[in-house]
């Protein structure tokens, strides 16, 4: 067991640091600490530009194999990259859906043509992706998908509705789970389609959130089209692909998210020192608890990342979502308690909230999206602990 890094890895760290120092400045200075969940709609144009700068220098998709345009870096180097990215205040990665979800899915399940067509623009930061999974009646019960696609000539024609799609406005493509066998039920008869967003058959309607922002949208498909070859993993085999996408998540990307949490925690610590609540024994306990909790998220991730490729992630692999979402939700309340009366005062009218107010509100979605905590607990109990379904 060793939590330190080798000489070569430290050299890689210096390389990352130098790139960020040389590039994350000037017009990009204002992006520091911005973006990411809860702030995803901020500085989108500029973050797209930043994504391209990263891409040109080869810093997108660094964990992908070289043959697919990545650097093929080790998990340790991914950890280092994330550490340095956070340290430098790197903004929320606008291309993360393509990099962490769609890309690995195509690398695993895609055809050669699909890889050739779709992977390079993810690496270069030229094309953004969004995810079309949830529907109004398929949330926790994802298999209850109603959006349908039928093959007409050379094209899939799609009818239906997706919801909670983040960055839909800005995305070039969406991976959409559709029912392609009209007589099918549940997990069978679903296909994983790649659909261009810029077309008449797609309408995007922003969802106004409790934060007053709209980083999620509803996406309506009314005769939307995509070429028949844009199906991943075979027709009616989409469930397997969708589940595969989830399995690629090994936690390297959660390190980036922890970076955001760390920034938020540092804001709260500063606020507590400034307004004197850092002297309150109860607040001290809670701040320390939050600090310990964040450390734990990191060590949880490092344990999972240390599992050999292909090996079982173990019991610890199942708790990640429950752990971080609970941490952030509790943190949101703590942040407000530290701010005290000031917690209720916005930065500006009519509803310009500060980052901590956003965290307080946004963290309420953390325990809901990507599988509610209740669903997570069922999964943990059934898969990791072997408790019976019925």
């Amino acid at each position, binding site marked *: *067991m*060793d*939590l*330190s*890094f080798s000489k070569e*890895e430290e050299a890689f760290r210096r390389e990352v640091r130098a790139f960020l120092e040389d590039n994350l400045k000037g017009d990009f200075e204002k992006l520091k600490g911005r973006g990411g969940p809860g702030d995803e709609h901020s500085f989108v144009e500029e973050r797209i530009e930043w994504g391209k700068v990263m891409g040109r220098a080869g810093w997108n998709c660094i964990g992908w194999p070289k043959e697919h345009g990545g650097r093929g870096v080790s998990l*340790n180097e991914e*950890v280092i990259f994330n550490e340095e990215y956070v340290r430098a205040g790197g903004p929320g990665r606008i291309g993360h859906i393509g990099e962490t979800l769609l890309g690995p899915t195509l690398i695993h399940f895609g055809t050669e043509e699909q890889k050739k067509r779709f992977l390079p623009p993810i690496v270069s930061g030229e094309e953004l992706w969004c995810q079309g999974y949830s529907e109004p009646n398929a949330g926790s019960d994802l298999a209850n998908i109603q959006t349908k696609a039928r093959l007409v000539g050379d094209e899939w024609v799609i009818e239906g509705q997706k919801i909670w799609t983040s960055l839909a406005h800005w995305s070039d493509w969406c991976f959409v789970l559709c029912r392609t066998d009209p007589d099918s039920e549940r997990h069978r008869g679903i296909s994983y389609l790649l659909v261009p967003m810029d077309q008449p058959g797609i309408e995007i309607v922003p969802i106004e959130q409790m934060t007053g922002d709209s980083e999620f949208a509803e996406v309506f498909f009314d005769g939307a089209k995509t070429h028949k070859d844009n199906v991943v993993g075979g027709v009616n085999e989409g469930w397997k692909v969708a589940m595969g996408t989830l399995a690629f998540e090994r936690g390297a990307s959660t390190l980036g998210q922890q970076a955001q949490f760390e920034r938020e925690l540092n804001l709260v*610590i500063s606020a*507590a*020192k400034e307004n004197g609540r*850092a002297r309150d*024994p109860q607040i*001290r*306990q809670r*701040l*320390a*608890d939050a*600090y*310990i*909790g964040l*450390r*734990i998220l990191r*060590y*949880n991730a*490092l*344990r999972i*990342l*240390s*599992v050999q490729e292909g090996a079982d992630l173990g*019991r*610890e692999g*199942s*708790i990640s979502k*429950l*752990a971080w979402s*609970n941490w952030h939700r509790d943190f949101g309340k703590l942040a407000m308690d530290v701010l005290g009366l000031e917690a209720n005062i916005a930065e500006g009218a009519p509803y310009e909230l500060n980052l901590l107010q956003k965290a307080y509100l946004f963290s309420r979605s953390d325990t809901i999206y990507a599988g509610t905590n*209740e669903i*997570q*607990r*069922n999964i*943990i*109990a*059934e898969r*990791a*602990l*072997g*408790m*019976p*379904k*019925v």
Partner: protein
Amino acid sequence: MHFRFNEEQLELGRAARRFLEVESTTDKLRAAFGSDELYDAELYRRIAEELGWLALLIPEEYDGLGLTAVDLMPILEEMGRSLYRGPFFSTVCLGVNALLLGGSAAQKEEILPLVAAGEETLTLAYSEPHGRHEIDAIETHFEERGDEFVLHGVKRYVLDGVSADRVIVAARSKGSVGEEGIRLFVVPGDAEGLTRKRLPTLDISRNEAELIFEGVRVGRDAVVGADLDGAALLESILDRARAALAVEQVGGAERCLDMAVAYSLERKQFGRPIGSFQAIKHKAADMLWKVESARSIAYAANVAAASDDGLLLRELASSAKAYASDAYFFCASENIQIHGGVGFTWEYDPHFYFKRAKASEELLGHADFHRERVARAMGL
């Protein structure tokens, strides 16, 4: 960076599980209850001679294996899991660590081979009747008289304090205050002027004692860490022990989870195993979340201990002890609840864990104490 056990460490854990599952059972705990026997000396001898666990942390030059705090973790986890009752923790995590960090060459040469062979046990006596864990709260004092030191004071909650062959005691120079004047001495358990009294305990899986020092005389050669700052030395010993205890707590907490899940599959109500109800599943999932989180921070603390990173250890040992204490208590409580009525009986095992969880939580500093320590490390 590699944050997993290697194959040797995994095998050590499996071997410890196999051995302790048979030898350190709750049936034996029940059977020993109420007797004068402090621990199973024969079992301790086998742990030393057959398994070599006592030698693990001890350098090879003192007949040890020269391994680290990380290598010790698989054993501690299993001892927590099986509620092992012997003086292993006190001897190794308190006593050996004290000598490794502060002992003179002569002390190490004399004592460590005996410990490695299982012929002598050790403990550390630092806490006092007031129960405070801050170093400046130490009241037991010493006076220097020529080549001798004379010790006065009362130590309480001393792990295995009655059976220990040698006691490393923390005292302050008479008249000193705060963290100044703290020194450690290694004192024979049967020293003249030392009275040792076994304390009846809520948690029957660990022995605690009160030690009264009334003019106990020791020579200069009894000083541990003569050239070191005594308060800092004591803190680093305690931090290593806290990191170790956190691992033990993880083992106990995980046993509670496993016990609860097994019972939930066996116990039927409304015609189905209670483990099929979401109310029970969600409790179990929360237990796993806390067990694995505690494991992550406890392991990290011991990596810091093994790499002698004192500053990081201080923060991580407190983080680990705070989190693992809460996690163990949580799991022990939920285990009783999931067991329902039988969870309240002496016959079933959950109560042993519920009690050990509480005792461990207080031992070496409660979670609140450690969170305050973390707050300071954070610059608050």
